[in-house]
């Protein structure tokens, strides 16, 4: 394969040489300034087109260019400014150039191939780019969170509000039901890991039940993207359409995120230091029920208050509970306001031949709960060396330490998750106060024994720490054997390595109340993930500009990729006080190990044509991939793509009018082990045995295939004040990787097959407006809109409808059914003679009301839709003299969520509005006026909801709520201090900022945050909120100093 590539390269080279012109030189000097700011611009690239001469401006915006005599055509380009062509007549020796600020980012670079790019003005597909300033407007828990609301077409779900992040990114809807669902992340050419491994919390929380089971997907997993330091990033480009992502072949259906880190600039070494100091409080808590009598506690549903009877009678002997004895347990516990901080120091500089950028970050985010938090320490060094006209090298290296102390949150089965446990603990007991012996009180409620917990005791004494030590390195060696007026050939070798060790340690000492749930008191888990990813690729790019007004870029190459993970955990149970090591348990040590490895090979070729004076761009290419994950490892799967754009230039009312469209195919390779036919090991009486596996592998398994059509337009009008980008897309995903359950009577649980089709249709639009841009005030407003709809269009008859996420079959779940929308929420709802009864009917039926005369049948049916009607992001930046205000607002219309948290609060009799009377306003959605009228006086709202949900076989609609919201996601107000202030401390520049994240939220949803709602990590959104870590509202004060 390579021999052929080399031959092709040789032919290409042989065809493309031309002699250079040789004339007497002339010199031109000048200054480049910004149109609005009137300030000089440094680092402007000035190229004399066709004259083989180039230079850059210095810090004062001045430049000197030596070129051949004759008229010069200068192409002037700078980051953040619109490019300009300036003609310098033969006799002119100085030229002053004014560049317009690139508000619409037309100069942005859009990736079109493994080694090729195009300016956004000519891009043939919709592209999204997030710049550094938008990314770090306010410090984020993780890169995922920083990207929320910034990428039209993407939905980013946090796995709860705990410190350190943990999220899933979905680009243009779910592209896979069971396969990998996360985008491919490419950082400076290295394909990096976004693995998420549980550290073993299930051993403590029993979220999925099972004695001695250490991991589950409900363990509030933090994915490896959270190790990436947003402060080191220059820009993030998100490739969405298959016409763009197909360059990454069989790993690209979920989109590709291309991250570029900051690089050095030549000149005197510049140092900048940023110090941020902040604090946090809960964005939203749920409040609590006020108890006034002991009897109220004893009457809690299901007798959950009964275990506290003696304690209640002793504490409140008169049977009355004073208002002052009521405690909002969540508010009391999630109240840590200790300072969070972030320190960033960076340095950049270099010579014409060598430039470097280096930075150090130290961040600590304090969690709302005691003893929780996340720390990130990162060091980066990027160096660019130019050896000669022919050779240059770019090296990037980073070392990160990420330490996460996240406590316990989410689903559990033994009161280990505070929000869960608080639901069953009436707020009449103060668990925060230690006694004289330094011991916390036991929680007398919720059974009062094992299976109940004092969360203060727990969070003071458990350890749940993940330490990640990660090294990223990548390098690009570029060789330019040929550069002439008409031809340029660049060969490059790119290599990337990503190595991380995730070390997790979980300790729960034996004296905690919740210990002993599985018969063993005290447990410790030590787990390690060792991940190693590396990729290398070879590219040859030949650019031909020999025809006036056109350029042809031909490229070809090959790539090798490998990803390995080795996960092992050790669980010991039954500890003596003080024991903390895994060899010390009384129960036999349980050890788990999972080893995974993927190897992929690819060859690719690409042709990019820009013609008709840049009006028409054409882009086409093909990639062939084979992978160790496929059933047939020798087979190459082909991923072609093609796209085109035509820019009409000024057209009617438009100053620029571009139409673009593309079609492409990308793949999603099978999961590790999908191809393998294996047994399951068992042990009985000390002897080993093998049984048949629950899921049977498929030796014919192949990648899922996404074929996408995209069309759109980019318009600029009203004197270049408004730009509209609109894109419509249609995605067809075939050969879905599915594990359909087969008839269990066959003896098999499930099989692995490629089957079924998913179709997603969607629309994205971005409107950039410059409402004001003159003198002292500059205001840019970017509004994005996104909407999509996904349907299973074809599921073979042998695959029955199924729930792709496992999860709690008793409440709600997604369901994959032929012809149905994937995001619908399914649950049980009561039917009377085939007609759906209103919400609350089951309550009336249960109390024997004459308004509910007929028996109901609970049927599995649609109770909501997790997909928002639409989502809009509003990003604004206003600069007035030295002040800059930036903020982003996010509006999600619709998108239902099953509020399991509310359900457990009602079940535990502790919800805030439990004692309210039922009215049409406060009753669950779907409750009719007739039902309200029939409810007997004195019925409590909490009781109504709970029984309406539980009676008659269940009505899941009761807790299915509208998860729409409007939120002020981030805001920053900064002040650029006068130079004198900076000079006073010998700095060059000084800036003060006030920053906030998750500042405000308006929603009808009643639990913490409708956005942080995933019970476990699932591809098809489960839209269920269960006792997640409450999200925090964070405020920071920052000082930036430049030296």
């Amino acid at each position: 394969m390579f021999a052929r590539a080399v031959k092709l390269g040789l032919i290409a080279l042989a065809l493309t040489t031309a002699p250079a012109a040789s004339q007497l030189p002339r010199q031109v000097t000048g200054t480049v300034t910004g149109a609005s700011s009137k300030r000089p611009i440094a680092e402007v690239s000035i190229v004399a087109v066709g004259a083989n001469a180039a230079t850059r401006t210095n810090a004062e915006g001045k430049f000197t260019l030596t070129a051949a005599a004759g008229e010069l055509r200068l192409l002037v380009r700078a980051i953040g400014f619109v490019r300009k062509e300036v003609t310098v007549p033969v006799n002119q020796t100085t030229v002053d150039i004014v560049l317009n600020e690139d508000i619409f980012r037309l100069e942005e670079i859009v990736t079109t191939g493994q080694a090729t790019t195009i300016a956004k003005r000519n891009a043939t597909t919709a592209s999204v780019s997030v710049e550094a300033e938008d990314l770090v407007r306010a410090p984020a828990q993780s890169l995922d969170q920083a990207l929320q609301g910034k990428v039209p077409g993407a939905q980013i779900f946090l796995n709860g509000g705990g410190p350190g992040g943990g999220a899933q990114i979905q680009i243009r809807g779910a592209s896979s039901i069971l396969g990998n669902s996360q985008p491919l992340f490419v950082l400076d050419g290295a394909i990096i890991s976004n693995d998420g491994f549980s550290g073993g919390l299930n051993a403590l929380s029993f979220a999925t039940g099972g004695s001695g089971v250490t991991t589950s997907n409900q363990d509030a997993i933090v994915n490896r993207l959270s190790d990436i330091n947003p402060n080191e990033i220059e820009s993030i480009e998100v490739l969405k359409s298959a016409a763009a992502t197909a360059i990454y072949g069989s790993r690209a259906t979920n989109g590709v995120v291309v991250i570029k880190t900051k690089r050095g600039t030549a000149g005197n070494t510049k140092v900048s230091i940023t110090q941020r100091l902040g604090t946090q409080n809960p964005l939203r808590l749920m409040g609590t029920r006020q108890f006034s009598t002991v009897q109220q506690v004893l009457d809690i549903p299901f007798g959950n208050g009964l275990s506290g009877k003696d304690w209640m009678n002793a504490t409140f002997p008169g049977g009355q509970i004073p208002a002052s004895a009521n405690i909002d347990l969540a508010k009391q516990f999630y109240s840590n306001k200790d300072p969070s901080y972030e320190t960033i120091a960076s340095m950049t500089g270099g010579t014409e031949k060598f430039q470097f950028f280096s930075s150090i970050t130290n961040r600590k985010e304090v969690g709302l709960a005691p003893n929780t938090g996340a720390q990130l320490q990162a060091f980066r060094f990027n160096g660019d060396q130019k050896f000669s006209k022919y050779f240059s090298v770019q090296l990037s290296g980073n070392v990160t330490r990420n330490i996460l102390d996240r406590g316990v949150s989410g689903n559990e089965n033994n009161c280990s998750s505070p929000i869960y446990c608080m639901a069953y603990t009436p707020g009449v007991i103060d668990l925060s106060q230690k006694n004289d012996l330094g011991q916390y009180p036991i929680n007398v409620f919720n059974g009062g024994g094992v299976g109940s917990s004092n969360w203060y005791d727990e969070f003071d004494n458990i350890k749940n720490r993940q330490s990640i030590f990660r090294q990223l390195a990548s390098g690009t060696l570029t060789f330019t054997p040929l550069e002439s007026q008409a031809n340029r050939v660049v060969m490059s070798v790119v290599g990337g390595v990503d190595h991380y060790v995730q070390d997790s340690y979980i300790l729960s000492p034996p004296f905690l109340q919740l210990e002993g749930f599985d018969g063993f008191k005290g447990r410790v888990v030590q787990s390690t993930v060792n991940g190693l990813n590396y990729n290398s690729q070879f590219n040859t790019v030949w650019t031909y500009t020999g025809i006036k007004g056109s350029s042809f870029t031909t490229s070809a190459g090959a790539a090798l990729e490998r990803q390995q993970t080795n996960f092992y955990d050790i669980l010991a149970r039954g500890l003596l006080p003080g024991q903390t090591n895994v060899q010390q348990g009384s129960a036999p040590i349980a050890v788990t190990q999972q080893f995974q490895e993927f190897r992929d090979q690819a060859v690719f070729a690409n042709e990019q044509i820009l013609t008709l004076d840049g009006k028409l761009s054409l882009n086409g290419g093909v990639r062939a991939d084979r992978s160790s994950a496929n059933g047939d490892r020798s087979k190459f799967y082909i991923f072609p793509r093609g796209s085109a754009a035509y820019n009409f230039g000024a057209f009617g009312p438009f100053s620029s009018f571009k139409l673009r469209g593309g079609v492409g195919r990308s793949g999603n390779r099978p999961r590790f082990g999908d191809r393998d036919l294996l047994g399951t090991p068992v042990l009985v009486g000390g002897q080993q045995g093998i049984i048949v596996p629950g899921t049977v592998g498929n030796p014919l398994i192949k990648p899922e295939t996404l074929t996408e059509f995209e069309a759109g337009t980019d318009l600029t009008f009203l004197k270049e004040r408004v730009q509209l980008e609109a894109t419509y897309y249609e995605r067809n995903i075939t050969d879905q990787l599915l594990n359909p359950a087969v008839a269990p009577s066959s003896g098999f649980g499930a099989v692995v097959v490629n089957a079924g089709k998913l179709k997603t249709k969607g629309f994205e639009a971005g409107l950039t407006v410059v409402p004001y841009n003159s003198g002292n005030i500059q205001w840019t407003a970017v509004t994005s809109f996104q909407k999509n709809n996904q349907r299973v269009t074809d599921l073979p008859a042998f695959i029955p409808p199924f729930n792709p996420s496992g999860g709690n079959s008793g409440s709600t779940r997604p369901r994959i059914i032929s012809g149905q929308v994937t995001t619908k929420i399914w649950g049980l709802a009561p039917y009377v003679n085939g007609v759906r009864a209103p919400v609350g009917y089951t309550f009336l039926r249960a109390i024997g009301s004459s308004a509910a005369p007929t028996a109901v049948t609970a049927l599995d049916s649609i109770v909501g839709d997790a997909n928002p009607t639409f989502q809009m992001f509003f990003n604004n930046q206003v600069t007035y003299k030295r002040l800059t205000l930036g903020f982003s607002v996010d509006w999600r219309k619709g998108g239902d969520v099953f509020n399991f948290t509310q359900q457990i609060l009602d079940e535990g009799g502790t919800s805030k509005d439990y004692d309210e009377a039922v009215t049409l306003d406060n009753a669950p959605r779907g409750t009719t006026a007739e039902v309200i009228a029939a409810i007997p006086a004195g019925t409590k709202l909490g009781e109504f909801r709970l029984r309406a949900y539980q009676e008659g076989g269940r009505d899941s609609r009761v807790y299915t709520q509208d998860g729409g919201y409007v939120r002020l996601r981030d805001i920053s107000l900064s002040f650029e201090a006068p130079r004198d202030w900076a000079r006073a401390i010998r700095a060059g520049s000084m800036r003060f900022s006030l920053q906030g994240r998750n500042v405000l939220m308006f929603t009808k949803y009643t639990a913490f945050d409708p956005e942080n709602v995933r019970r476990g990590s699932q591809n098809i959104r489960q839209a269920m909120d269960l006792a997640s870590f409450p999200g925090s509202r964070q405020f920071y004060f920052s000082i930036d100093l430049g030296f």
Partner: protein
Amino acid sequence: MRYSNVKRALRAMIPAAVVLSSACSVDSLTVPNKNAPNLSGTQNSRAAVNLAVLGMLSLARNNEQGWLGSAAAYGREYWLMQPQFGGTISGPARDWKVASLNGSGLWGGYFRNLRDVAVAKQVLDTSSASLSAAEKSAARGVIYTFEALEQLHVILSRDTVGTVTQVTGTPTDVRPFVSRDSGYKFVTAILDSGLAALNAGGSAFPFTLPGGFIGNPGGGFAPGAVGFDASTPATFAKFNRALKARVEVYRASIGCGAPCYQAALTALGASFFTGVAGFTKANRALGVYHVYSAATNDVTNGYIPAQGQFNYINTTIKTVPNVTADLRYQEKIGPAALVGAVEGFTSDIEPTVYASFSAPSPIIRNEELILKYAEAQYFAGSQSEALAAINAVRTLSGGLAPRGAFTDANDFKTELLAQVRLSLLFEGHRWVDVRRLLGNAGLANLRLTYPSGINEPAEWSVATSLPVPSGECDARKGTGNPALAGPGC
């Protein structure tokens, strides 16, 4: 100049291309899956037979864990009282079939093991060189016996719905339901095939059976129990016959009548049953057991006393007159460390049948056989012999006074069920025995009255049988053949 550069570059690239093309060979894509075993390495060998048979025995044991808990809950012997789950998952009065909504319990595991049976048979068939004919026959005897036992549990859990007796090995090849009666006939035939194979099985198995088949398994069940050794084909055959006796008694009580009771008596004669005269307090526990441990890949016995496991005993057992004086009550039920309270129910007693995670659970034992013997004698033999058997249990197991003659069949059934309730507590019998002797109406009488608050919907009354799992039904409907959907879907 440019050409020379190009040449230089190409020259430099040749070694790189060589290195890359070797890295690009398809062989480099061979990545083994190291996380799970397969039988291919030991194909056709003695080791493969060992792994397959032990695998089958292991899964049968795992399945038994599900059976013990479910049958004890449906038979209202046992309450799972986890406070947090009051309303959502299960409670004392709710059957798990409703809570899990799809009745997936007690189904897939048995069929999965019937696949293991098929695999084990296949391994035996291909192990021509490494095992003698007698050894193969002995191994087949064990495999048939467990095939029958797994199938029996499917029939017991689905009762009149029936079962599926053909397990083909092709995931999409769904076979029709057969009636309960056909299922029972299948089970008895398989047990007889097993006996024939064991009889031709020589003197030793080509593998070592787990501890529960050899002597006293220990672990606290019935202290001082005398062990029964089923570790040779000849003695394993006695275990096979004991199961046959159980199956024949079941069949007899649901329609077959005297012929099946007679067959049961014949089978008992060939089993390890000690006879009434030989029955002692010590040899009650004589039998074959499943063993457990907390080792990796092994499973534990989860029905240990309440602490941490929320296992409680249904307090209605206390309404049996003088029950606390019964030795069996004292042996098997203890005061709970913490009173369980869920849905207004409370329980202060917990099971001590299984004292630890490694406590063995009986597959079948002498005390069950004597009760089966009493039943068969009462309905098809000597009523006085039946009385003698019942009194042996009353006096030796329970420390109770002997009783007088039975007034009628109902009197006998009541007495028998009273002994089953205590003698075989938490061994998976009460639900089955009440259903087959007193019918569904008898089960309905086990229904609990809610102390307060909650309306008990009719569907929460005691399960008579479990529904066919929705996954099974969906797959059957997916075949497009309505005949396959059959009863229960």
